[in-house]
């Protein structure tokens, strides 16, 4: 695979992650209370206040990271957060799966796809096991993109860095 094709493939993966993050964020922001209820169902060993803060901040983290990935700016910072978020989702859904909790993951709003809540397909897509696998895959994809050379995941370099890249006069 030549560099151009590889770069296009990585860009497509970045857009996919960005799109999924935006979709997930919008679904949560439109149903913030439902998302909070879902968080409670995970029985995380956290105080109510902390769970509320997570419910309030997490959708905006997803939205900002998703938009940055789609726009192609601040990519590495957005990918770093995407990896952290997906890793946390993987841990939470994995724990819930192991504990046998039947929780709709609350990750994505499937109604825009015409998938009726409560249908067999929605139940499968929202199941804890599927959510775990999806989050693990996305965490892997995020870290793969993050560890790519900067030339394949372009981002704005700091001015100090640009200074260092100038030819050494000596």
């Amino acid at each position, binding site marked *: 695979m030549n560099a151009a094709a590889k770069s296009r493939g990585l860009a497509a993966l970045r857009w996919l992650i960005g799109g999924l993050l935006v979709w997930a964020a919008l679904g949560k922001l439109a149903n913030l209370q439902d998302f909070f209820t879902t968080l409670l169902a995970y029985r995380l060993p956290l105080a109510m206040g902390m769970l509320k803060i997570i419910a309030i901040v997490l959708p905006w983290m997803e*939205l900002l990271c998703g938009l940055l990935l789609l726009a192609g700016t601040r990519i590495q910072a957005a990918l770093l957060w995407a990896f952290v978020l997906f890793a946390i989702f993987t841990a939470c859904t994995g724990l819930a799966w192991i504990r046998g909790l039947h929780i709709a993951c609350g990750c994505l709003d499937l109604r825009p796809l015409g998938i009726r809540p409560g249908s067999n397909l929605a139940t499968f897509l929202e199941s804890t096991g599927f959510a775990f696998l999806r989050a693990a895959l996305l965490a892997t994809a995020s870290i793969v993109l993050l560890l790519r050379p900067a030339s394949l995941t372009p981002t704005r370099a700091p001015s100090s860095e640009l200074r*260092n890249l100038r030819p050494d006069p000596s």
Partner: protein
Amino acid sequence: MLYKRTASCDETRMNRRLFIIREAVAIFIAAACLGFAYDTVSPLGLGKPTAVFLSAATPAIAQAPINPTAAPPPTPAPPQTSPAAAPLPAQIVKWPEVKPLLDSGAITLVDTRPSEAFKTGNIPGAVSLPKELLEEQLAPFMASHPKHAPLVFYCQSAFCGVAQAVAAQFTGAGYTDVRVMAGGYVEWAMAEAKDSVPPGTLPSPVGGAR
């Protein structure tokens, strides 16, 4: 010269990492600011799960106790022969009012969310009457509940509106003691989470349940 280049390369890498971390912190701060602003300003905010609907409840409604043995409220039900007539709006109640009545069996608590949502988590003591199965289940339900039976409907949250719609059907059918727990399942979950919900009854809603 080689040493200088290597040092420069290390410095560049370090600068790049610091730069990424700075940007990541900036993203977090921006998300936190936007999140708290949204939570404060938006009616969907967590701080006001029932505020929109409860503020619409009149003091008389808020003070009116649910009493199954009392005579039906004096307000007449809309005539069933006039389909154009709008049914009376259901009275709004909060979970703390519903809880003792539910415990004593004085009311029937009706869950209008999808049956899948009910199966995976519901308020203990509630009966399921999912809106999507209303046509099939309405007649048997009404046959087993007289017109003066006190009914309290709920759906997922203060913004689902399904409980209000189903309650309106009941008032339209001549039911005289119809109320809506406007905060819905979320109001119960939040109230119960504060009092540490017993195992097995923790909220586990189906995503997007309405």
